[in-house]
């Protein structure tokens, strides 16, 4: 790694992956790991075929089907288009010698869950995937971002992407997280504060004392939703918690490579006095358990609050946007958030489908029943998360409480498979997007932490975990 002026983690990874600075102002950036799934890759492989181009380095790519897969009865995918798409991925990876985790493989799961779980994701790497939540992997201090299908094809053909350097933004959160506040609340709070375009053109580095004790799972939740703040990537400097998580995982470096990697990783954290284009400092005591009330992740507020009035908007556009959201969500201004009655609960996704999330939910619903009008669904992020949960007996607790216990995949986070909301159904969801129609046409999504979703499942209404006994 080059020395000289103080550098951010982003600057270090960037300069270490620069293949060529071109005369036209663009940079050719080398990609260490490419993750591929069934939805955004078929057209890329087709493009290669048409141009008669090979995959340049098949071993740098790993593939899995996750977006489109059913979460029950998956031996035969009923939906013909979904089946064809999954089969196309299997065929394409076979043809090009790319490793593919089949649906029957216990390691199958959401691409952003299995990367870290397998130790594929490592500090200092560049990683891409045709999926915006690739930002998740930034929790390890890897520069990871989502790309479109044309870029997927570009990476398959050249193992590089064409980029302009992003700007550096640092968000420091200081102080212990208050009782009932999780990393999900923290990132929702940040998105509410800077807005869904607040991070456009930037890579957000999360720092500060609040983050230091957080587990890798919690850190992933934060980096995951960087894209909802407009940033293509989120980053957290790697530390002992990162290294301990990785050690011994199947794709992590072994033996003499491990110590060499550890030296390299240890030099990655941002230098003191490194320059940031934007800075934001947050005191953790400002943060409450958070819930979205509208149709953009920035439409978020404390669970103890009231549904806002459009007259509170600072601009005419925002006023219209609030009115549109409230109409879609079927909510009246001034209603207490905790008076909002729910129909469904979805626990899962690349944001909150990890073992820690399932443990939290199980601890809250243990020996309790979800409200009689609630349909609750739990979709583990991967086959291995599911297995781990079953070994810990969590599935027994969750099923006894009345939850459906499903197979791994993206599921109702985006509703490409049969798991969808019906029009006007209201759902507490641990996922990442509350866009109109996201979880099903006319469906109404309230984003929140697994803890809040679990308590809300029991009460049948959105519930403040701090009042939940």
């Amino acid at each position, binding site marked *: 790694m080059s020395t000289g002026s103080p550098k951010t983690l982003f600057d270090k990874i960037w300069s270490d992956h620069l*293949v*060529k600075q*071109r005369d*036209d*102002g663009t940079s*050719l950036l*080398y990609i*260490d790991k490419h993750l591929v799934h069934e*939805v*955004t890759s*078929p*057209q890329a492989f*087709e493009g290669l075929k048409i141009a008669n*181009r090979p995959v340049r*380095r098949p*071993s740098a790519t790993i593939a899995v089907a996750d*977006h*489109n897969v059913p979460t029950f009865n998956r031996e035969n995918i009923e*939906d013909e*288009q*979904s089946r064809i*798409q999954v089969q196309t991925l299997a065929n394409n990876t076979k043809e090009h010698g790319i490793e593919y985790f089949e649906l029957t493989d216990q390691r199958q799961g959401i691409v952003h869950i299995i990367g870290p779980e397998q130790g594929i994701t*490592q500090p200092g790497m560049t990683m891409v995937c*045709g*999926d915006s939540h*690739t930002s998740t992997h930034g929790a390890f201090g890897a520069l990871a971002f*989502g*790309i*479109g299908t*044309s*870029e997927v*094809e570009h990476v398959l*053909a*050249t193992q*590089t992407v064409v980029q*302009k350097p992003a700007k550096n933004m640092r968000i420091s959160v200081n102080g212990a997280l208050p009782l009932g506040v999780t990393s999900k609340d923290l990132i929702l709070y940040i998105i509410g504060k800077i807005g*869904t*375009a607040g991070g*456009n*053109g930037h890579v957000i580095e999360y720092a500060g004392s609040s983050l230091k004790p957080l587990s890798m799972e919690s850190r992933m939740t934060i980096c995951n939703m960087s894209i909802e703040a*407009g940033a*293509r990537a989120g980053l957290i400097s790697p530390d002992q918690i990162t290294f301990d998580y990785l050690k011994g995982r199947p794709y992590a470096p072994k033996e003499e490579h*491990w110590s*060499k*990697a550890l030296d*390299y990783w240890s030099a990655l954290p941002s230098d003191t006095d490194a320059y940031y284009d934007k800075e934001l400092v947050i005191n953790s005591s400002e943060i409450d358990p958070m819930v979205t009330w509208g149709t*953009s992740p*920035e439409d978020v507020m404390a669970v103890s609050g009231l549904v806002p009035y459009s007259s509170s908007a600072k601009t005419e556009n925002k006023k219209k*946007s609030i009115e*549109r959201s409230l109409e879609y969500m079927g909510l009246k201004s001034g209603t207490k958030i905790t008076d909002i009655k729910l129909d469904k609960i979805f626990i899962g996704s690349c944001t909150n489908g990890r073992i820690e999330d399932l443990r939290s939910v199980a601890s809250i619903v243990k020996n309790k029943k979800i409200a009689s009008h609630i349909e609750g669904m739990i979709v583990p992020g991967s086959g291995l998360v599911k297995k781990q949960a079953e070994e810990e007996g969590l599935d027994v607790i969750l099923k006894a409480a009345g939850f459906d216990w499903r197979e791994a995949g993206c599921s109702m986070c*985006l*509703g*490409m498979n049969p798991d969808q909301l019906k029009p006007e159904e209201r759902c507490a969801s641990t996922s990442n*997007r509350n*866009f*109109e*129609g*996201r979880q099903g*046409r*006319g469906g109404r999504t309230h984003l929140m932490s697994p803890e809040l979703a679990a308590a809300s499942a029991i009460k049948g209404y959105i519930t403040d975990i701090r009042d939940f006994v």
Partner: protein
Amino acid sequence: MDKFITLKGIAAPLPIVNIDTDMIIPKQFLKTIKRTGLGISLFYEMRYDLQGHEIKDFILNTKPFNQSKILVAGDNFGCGSSREHAPWSLKDFGISCIISTSFADIFYNNCFQNGILPIVVSPENSKKLIDFAGDQKEFEIDLPSQNILVEGEKIGFDIEPYRKERLIEGLDDIGITMNYEQSITDYELIQKKDKPWIFKDIE
């Protein structure tokens, strides 16, 4: 890729903020393995009712806006997922220029891969252009001179030179990058020494 040099026509106003990629092309249309044929499903939930009938007052269902080649939209257009199906569906509908005060990064980048020109204008100009669009005024987009011409007004815009060149020439990124094959190979060999755990397979 299609070239983009100049474009003339009316523009459809869609002054909603944060139009996300789920709105542009909902999930059920992502099951395709083709790039084409998505235009009919563009803005599906705003454009069709639950029975699949056209919603008459949605702008792209009304004449003459159903023939628009230009869209003038609210702030932060294209936020959300990385789905390139969003620009594919816009292009397939016939739209090859989108004007907004800001775009989400991935969507912005995806546009250029498909011969679509996204133009960033100031909030004042956006308001003006939305009004002109609503009045069915003819827009002329001139990429070489970087101007929007409408009703005697000339509104300039910025674009990075390399993106401009690729649009005007209709160049394919992969073809350009493949000229750097030697640099990529050299890079891998050097990196293998420092990071052998990442480049185990490189000989």
